[in-house]
């Protein structure tokens, strides 16, 4: 089978030894198994994330995403651009749409891009890795690769915000998207379908600036996973993963809870189900060890 080719925008958190380094390792395994080739966009830059607006305003913020689109257009022509980070995807897709809707904004963006020796025709489609898996690969093919079903593992599927809103995955609802639960089923594990914090906000970047308010959100997300009898939480988002995993110890310190709920990525589940090792799945990168998953990997 010919490999499917994509212009890859990894984003800051997926760089070596950055906060989602382990996520990227599991993505590599999944891509190998599914004949997906991610070609890194040369010299890509940060998307501005969700608080870039404060100082960056409108045009400078759109322009930094336009630079990534222009680099993809120039260096990897004809390939869809794929992000594994919801913030990267959102910023890039939004910039593409905004510049498509307004000729004057596109002209301004190109005036700025010329300072970096670039020009944007704005023909690249910006997609999320989950879209590639569901729409281009498909559940059936993904399931065929499962050699080690994750039997008995109970997972609370936490989709979060930006993978789901404002764009989301085609055919899914904003209030109760189903694809993550379907992925959990696909790898042979058990989804907690009534998990009611599925699309709750973790506080996002405000976890840094408004820790108290964000930790209330995180407490709800973790508590409900416990209430539903989940062994761990699974998420498609780097910031959700980091916020929900890392701040549990802070909440324990301040509020006397005893949270110790692992938070993993969907690609880590797939890696183990595809026969990969705990290290290949990046499970050595968990702040709270996912022991049940490690045990399944060792079987």
């Amino acid at each position, binding site marked *: 089978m010919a490999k499917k080719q994509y212009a890859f925008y990894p984003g800051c958190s997926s760089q070596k030894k950055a906060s989602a380094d382990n996520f990227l390792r599991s993505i590599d395994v999944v891509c190998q198994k599914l004949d997906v080739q991610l070609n890194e966009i040369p010299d890509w830059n940060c998307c*501005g994330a969700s608080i870039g607006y404060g100082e960056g*305003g409108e045009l400078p913020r759109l322009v930094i995403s336009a630079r990534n689109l222009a680099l993809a257009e120039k260096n990897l022509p004809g390939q869809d651009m794929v992000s594994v980070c919801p913030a990267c995807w959102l910023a890039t897709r939004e910039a593409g749409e905004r510049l498509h809707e307004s000729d004057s904004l596109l002209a301004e963006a190109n005036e700025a891009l010329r300072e970096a020796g670039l020009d944007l025709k704005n023909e690249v489609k910006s997609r999320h890795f989950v879209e590639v898996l569901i729409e281009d690969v498909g559940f059936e093919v993904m399931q065929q690769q499962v050699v080690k079903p994750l039997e008995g593992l109970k997972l609370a599927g936490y989709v979060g915000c930006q993978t789901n809103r404002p764009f989301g995955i085609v055919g899914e609802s904003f209030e109760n998207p189903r694809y993550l639960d379907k992925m959990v089923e696909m790898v042979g594990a058990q989804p907690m379908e009534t998990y009611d914090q599925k699309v709750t906000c973790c506080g996002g970047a405000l976890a840094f600036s*408004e820790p108290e308010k964000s930790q209330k959100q995180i407490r709800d997300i973790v508590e409900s996973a416990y209430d539903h009898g989940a062994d761990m939480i699974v998420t498609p988002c780097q910031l959700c993963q980091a916020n929900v995993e890392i701040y549990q110890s802070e909440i324990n310190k301040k509020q006397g809870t005893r949270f110790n709920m692992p938070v993993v990525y969907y690609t880590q589940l797939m890696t183990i189900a595809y026969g990969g090792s705990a290290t290949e799945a990046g499970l050595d990168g968990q702040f709270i060890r996912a022991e049940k998953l490690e045990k399944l990997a060792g079987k």
Partner: protein
Amino acid sequence: MSDANNRALGAYRSNFLKEVEANVEEGHWVKMCMQCGVCAGSCPLGPHWQHSPQKIFMMIRAGKRDEVLTSDSMWMCTSCYNCIVRCPRKLPITHIMHGLANYAHRLGLAPKGQPTREIAKLFWDNLVKTGRVNELKFSLAMYFKDGFGQGIKNAMAMQGVGLGLVKAKRLNPLELLGGHGCKDKAGIHKMVAKAREIEDRRKGLA
């Protein structure tokens, strides 16, 4: 008061809605709000907004310029996009809140010391420097934003988290010495400066 603020006051007199439509990202949508309140009820940080988006929209139309631009409400936005997908009139509420926050910040009217305002600036400056965010330098800049003593206190309080991340290979202490970055830093600096110059000219901020 900043020169840009005086210019805006002169240009728009008492018509704040016109000013928002001209100078705030997606501001032309404000008049479409029908005051249903779904945004206010959908916000995860709703209880902490002094004025909900619904109220902000009505205040803009009522010409409450100072009250809107000095409010810390817009800085409560977590960018969860719940308001956007639920708005029956399809207003891009998240972006309008971002736009208002940025406009108030650039006019010098946004609340001083507002933590999200400060962190947003640190984040942008961090990313523009090398083209990519340096997570370690950004974290340290946040801890030390209120001075050295407070910084040490903050860093000590979070040291468990920091060391845990280093152990999990998700934080590299060597990032302090440089770390990840784009090759064409000069091009990025010129490009961002040009974009800001164009926008400032268009919005009367320069």
